[in-house]
């Protein structure tokens, strides 16, 4: 893709910038727009109400109106806040969640960077989010913000461990850290997906299925916790901590946090999809192959990747509007006493199976 763009633009540096900005304008912003509206509509219909109905047909322009409002809003910085860090924090959080998109395999022809350490890179850059959250919470000079930030950081750092272990399990099966290669291995048709044992053959594939389901469960729960969604939305538990680390933020800076949250939701869904659900591969084979138009395939792949990702985002929303919230110690218990031991055990068994 670089070569193609490079030919058009003619300058290496500009090409890189274009490539870097593409996910933002093609995926993150439109996704956030749709996801915010979807969340409101999904929640509304789950709660026997209609949700926003005024702006546009069935309120579809509501998010646009919201964003316009947020842009116009006064940027309030409380006098006691530490201004430099207070201003920096939302950007850091956003960079952390946005950098993840660089390594996501949207389609076989569209990966920001096909780095060999792709999945590892994704796990690493989420560290920026933690730092940003701590920064925002500290700079706000508000006890609720600080407590929220502390909880959030503790939560993300803890849940990175089971995530990493499950990722390791899958790395062991696929033999690569590259998300693009991983997706490629899970060739078209859903029985080749890693959740169903991967593209391996015979007894090994069947043996792997239960452990892959366990891996999926652990991965889903821990990524859910990493993006601070219910039932793990303790950092911003509005009944206790008002809004956690972003209590004092308003206007665009709040929008940055908001955007980062939705970007994160999609990012973790995309990770689950790439690791376990065939990445950009179609479950039923490609229309492009049937019709004999190979140029159609990357777009089909993009479609499948996005729709799988959006499906998991929908599941996240569904959970949010169904479940109550855990308490902070229970959250840690779930992580350290259940998820990590199970994940390690799972890793061990999968290791033995792959050796057979």
């Amino acid at each position, binding site marked *: 893709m670089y070569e193609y763009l490079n030919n058009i633009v003619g300058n*290496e*540096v500009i090409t*890189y910038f274009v490539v870097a900005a593409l996910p933002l304008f093609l995926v993150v912003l439109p996704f956030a727009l749709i996801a915010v509206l979807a969340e409101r509509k999904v929640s509304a219909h789950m709660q026997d109400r209609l949700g926003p109905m005024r702006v546009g047909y069935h309120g579809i322009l509501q998010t646009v109106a919201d964003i316009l409002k947020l842009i116009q809003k006064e940027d309030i910085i409380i006098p006691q806040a*530490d201004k*430099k*860090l207070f201003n*920096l924090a939302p950007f850091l959080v956003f960079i952390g969640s946005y950098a993840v998109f660089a390594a996501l395999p949207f389609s076989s022809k569209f990966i920001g960077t096909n*780095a*060999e*350490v792709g999945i*590892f*890179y994704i*796990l*690493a*850059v*989420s*560290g*920026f989010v*933690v*730092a940003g959250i*701590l*920064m925002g919470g*500290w700079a706000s000079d508000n*006890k609720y913000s*600080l407590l929220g930030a*502390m909880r959030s*950081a*503790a939560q993300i*750092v803890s849940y*990175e461990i089971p995530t990493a272990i499950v990722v390791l399990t899958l790395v062991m099966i696929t033999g690569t*850290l590259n998300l693009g290669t991983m997706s490629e291995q899970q060739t078209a048709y859903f029985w080749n997906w890693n959740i169903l044992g991967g593209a391996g053959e015979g007894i090994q594939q069947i043996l792997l299925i239960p452990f892959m389901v366990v891996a999926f469960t652990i991965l889903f729960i821990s990524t859910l916790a990493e993006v601070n969604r219910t039932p793990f939305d303790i950092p911003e538990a509005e009944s206790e901590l008002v809004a956690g680390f972003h209590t004092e933020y308003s206007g665009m800076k709040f929008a940055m946090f908001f955007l980062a949250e939705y970007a994160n939701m999609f990012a973790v869904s995309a990770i689950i999809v790439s690791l376990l659900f065939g990445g950009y591969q179609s479950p039923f084979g490609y229309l492009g192959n049937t019709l004999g138009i190979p140029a159609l395939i990357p777009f089909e792949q993009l479609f499948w990747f996005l729709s799988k990702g959006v499906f998991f985002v929908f599941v996240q929303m569904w959970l949010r509007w169904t479940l109550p919230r855990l308490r902070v110690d229970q959250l840690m218990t779930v992580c350290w006493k259940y998820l990590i031991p199970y994940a390690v055990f799972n890793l061990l068994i999968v290791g033995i199976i792959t050796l057979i």
Partner: protein
Amino acid sequence: MNLYDIIFYLFAAITIVSAFIVVNAKNIVYAAFSLLFTFFGVSGLYVLLGADFIAIVQVMVYIGGILVLLLFGVMLTHKITSVDIKAGSVQTIPAVIIIGIFAALLIGLMYSTHWAVNPAEIPVTTTKSLGKTLVTEYVLIFELLGILLLVAMIGAATIARRDGDK
């Protein structure tokens, strides 16, 4: 000046400037957060050197782990219990002397080394070979490190335990 050069100087600048702030910041929280950028810059330099795995480990361990721990420590003492922690310079003269010696050594080394100049190339991933080396050639050290970390963890858990929990 090509793209690699620009990026190199960018990362180098980030590293040096933020490291300077780390040393000089009066506010310890600023110092801690500047450390974030130092680590980030260093990992960027690693990438440019073709050591992508090390770069990622740098980000993961230092930013995701050590720095967050550091921030926890600083914040808990600084803001919640309202203990004022200020970083200031004491013993400036000995520090200057030591730094001077160290700088002279480094510069001397720089001039005396015969630098092999290679054309810039697309870095090849190191992950696979690194993994192989770790579990074959250096397996003993790897295991020993694992045991050391385990001991450290148990020790930490013991210390952190409250008396009442026994």
